[in-house]
């Protein structure tokens, strides 16, 4: 046991986690080529790393088998088989012995060679296997050079200590194995922070802590109330934190009592209380927290963390699953919102000076309607399986709405021609640019609903980049300009028979709940973890 170490950060979810640390270092992108004299020893080093990787995969397979069933576990079985492939192994060993190179470099070259082979095949399934080759190779390389593989390699739930986590890394994390995130960088409004809230995970960003491998496996406490991480805590701290954790758990239990209760103010006004989610797995949390629907389903997860566009079929299956699981409760899917801080290389979007003001979201969809139509077809086809609404992000003009409606009409007439059924689907837009908020009276007659995305609306109104932590001090979440735009948007909607909700982080801000109710907001969509606390707040409001 060393001495207790304290790090301070910005908390993104209030809660306490106690557990072991997993130091997550990204595998070196640039593998260095080194000349090795003792090639026999280098082969032994490779074989040992491979054996360790196989052990990790076996552990993952067994855990996944217990937790999620054989179908999901199979991937780890396949990874083991791939790692034992004779050609792959021959290629690595020949490289080490014939070229006198280090094992990392040999694995890296074999990875390039074999993933290229799969990528060149004329079959989507086989092309997708290139990602598996990369995955197994990275696993071996990170064992070789002492960095850890992705956090999923952990068998036990852990507190992840990392420099930063980007959205596509975060979506790949196994949620069952996360006790907390603690990152050196990142801002309270980043997507990783939003994800931590969705998953009820106490997490700190912008934390002053070294990324020392010596912490790996050490016991730590993350206090999301105070924004503190204690590494190797002393007995007094441990006792105090255990007590604090017990209290927090008790409070959570109290909230559980509100399950099944109506979301209605004292004066009898009903508010729709929905959830924001970013993947199919989040639905379990939505249902656990007794949410009344999904007010924002970020469809990006279908596009991130892969090398090719998702097919119509893949998307259809995903939407169908969500709609069926929600059993007739409303599900509002937001169409593709790639760009800005959420990037996927295969979109081929050129590097931009200012991506937040660049080619993103609906702009991509209108420029490349084929991408958009695939998503809309999948959505309309899935609409027969539940109660679907679709909303469009980053709208600034009526012209865009008209173009969208033309494309929707095309999609529907194509489905009609093919005799494919679809249901009645509500169409709405995100109000997340000052432009859309200000002309909301012009837009309202053409949509069924507005959903105010307060994160982007705030960032564009105050001209503050939400990914830049050094600006947090200037950011005023209750800025009057933002509140006035919300009020005006709500009035515009009601004047034209549309409804108006809030799906940004501000929707969960309990200090504003009363104000939103007075404005006449019809729906609040928040991280599932906030559902019951917000229901409590609404029931106590006038």
């Amino acid at each position, binding site marked *: 046991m060393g001495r207790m170490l304290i790090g301070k950060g910005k908390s993104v979810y209030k809660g306490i986690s106690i557990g072991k640390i997993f130091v997550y270092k990204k595998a070196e992108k640039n593998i260095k080529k080194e000349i090795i004299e003792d090639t026999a020893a280098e082969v032994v080093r490779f074989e040992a790393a491979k054996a360790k990787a196989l052990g990790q995969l076996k552990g993952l397979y067994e855990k996944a088998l217990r937790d999620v069933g054989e179908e999901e576990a*199979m991937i780890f079985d396949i990874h083991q088989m791939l790692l034992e492939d004779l050609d792959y192994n021959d290629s690595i060993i020949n490289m080490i012995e014939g070229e006198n190179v280090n094992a990392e470099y040999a694995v890296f070259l074999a990875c390039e060679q074999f993933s290229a082979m*799969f990528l060149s095949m*004329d079959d989507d*399934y*086989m092309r997708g296997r290139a990602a598996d080759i990369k995955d197994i190779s990275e696993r071996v390389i990170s064992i070789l050079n002492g960095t850890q593989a992705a956090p999923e390699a952990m068998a036990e739930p852990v507190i992840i200590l990392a420099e930063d986590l980007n959205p596509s890394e975060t979506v790949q994390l196994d949620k069952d194995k996360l006790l907390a995130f603690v990152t050196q960088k990142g801002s309270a409004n980043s997507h990783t922070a939003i994800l931590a809230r969705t998953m009820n995970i106490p997490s700190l960003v912008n934390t002053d802590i070294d990324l020392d491998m010596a912490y790996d496996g050490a016991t730590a406490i993350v206090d999301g109330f105070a924004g503190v991480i204690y590494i190797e805590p002393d007995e007094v701290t441990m006792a105090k934190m255990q007590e604090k954790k017990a209290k927090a758990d008790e409070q959570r239990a109290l909230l559980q009592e509100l399950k099944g209760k109506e979301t209605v103010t004292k004066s009898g006004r009903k508010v729709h209380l929905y959830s924001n989610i970013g993947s199919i797995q989040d639905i379990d949390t939505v249902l656990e927290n007794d949410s009344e629907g999904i007010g924002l389903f970020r469809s990006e997860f279908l596009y991130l963390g892969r090398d090719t566009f998702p097919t119509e079929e893949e998307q259809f299956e995903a939407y169908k699953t969500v709609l069926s699981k929600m059993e007739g409760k409303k599900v509002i899917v937001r169409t593709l919102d790639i760009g800005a801080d959420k990037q996927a290389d295969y979109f081929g979007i050129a590097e931009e000076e200012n991506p937040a003001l660049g080619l993103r979201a609906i702009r991509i969809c209108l420029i490349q309607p084929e991408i958009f139509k695939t998503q809309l077809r999948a959505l309309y086809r899935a609409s027969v399986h539940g109660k679907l609404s679709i909303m469009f992000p980053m709208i600034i003009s009526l012209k865009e709405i008209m173009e969208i409606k033309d494309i929707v009409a095309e999609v529907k007439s194509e489905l009609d021609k093919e005799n494919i059924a679809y249901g009645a689907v509500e169409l709405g837009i995100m109000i997340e640019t000052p432009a859309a908020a200000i002309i909301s009276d012009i837009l309202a007659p053409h949509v069924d609903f507005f959903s105010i995305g307060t994160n982007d609306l705030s960032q564009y109104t105050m001209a503050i980049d939400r990914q830049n932590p050094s600006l947090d001090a200037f950011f005023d979440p209750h800025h009057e300009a933002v509140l006035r735009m919300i009020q005006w948007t709500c009035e515009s909607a009601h004047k034209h028979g549309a409804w108006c909700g809030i799906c940004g982080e501000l929707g969960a801000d309990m200090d504003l709940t009363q104000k939103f109710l007075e404005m006449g907001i019809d729906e609040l969509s928040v991280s599932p973890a906030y559902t019951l606390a917000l229901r409590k707040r609404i029931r106590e409001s006038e």
Partner: protein
Amino acid sequence: MASFTYTIKDELGIHARPAGMLAKEAMKWNSAITIDNGTKKADAKRLMAVMSMGVKKGQVVTISAEGEDEAACIQAVEKFFEENL
């Protein structure tokens, strides 16, 4: 040499999992086992090579075994195809 021909029934063709299981099965035998779809050939013990043939549903493949245990081997491999592909 012993051989049989087989029409692939699996929706995904010879995909990763059956190819991996086939490699495991093939490793049990001393015989050299070859898969041939008319245009490409691969050693059944080599998973990625088999996958890279890209054998799809409905395609006919010829599997042959050559070695001292070829008779028993080909029987076992044929059973494997019937059960898994």
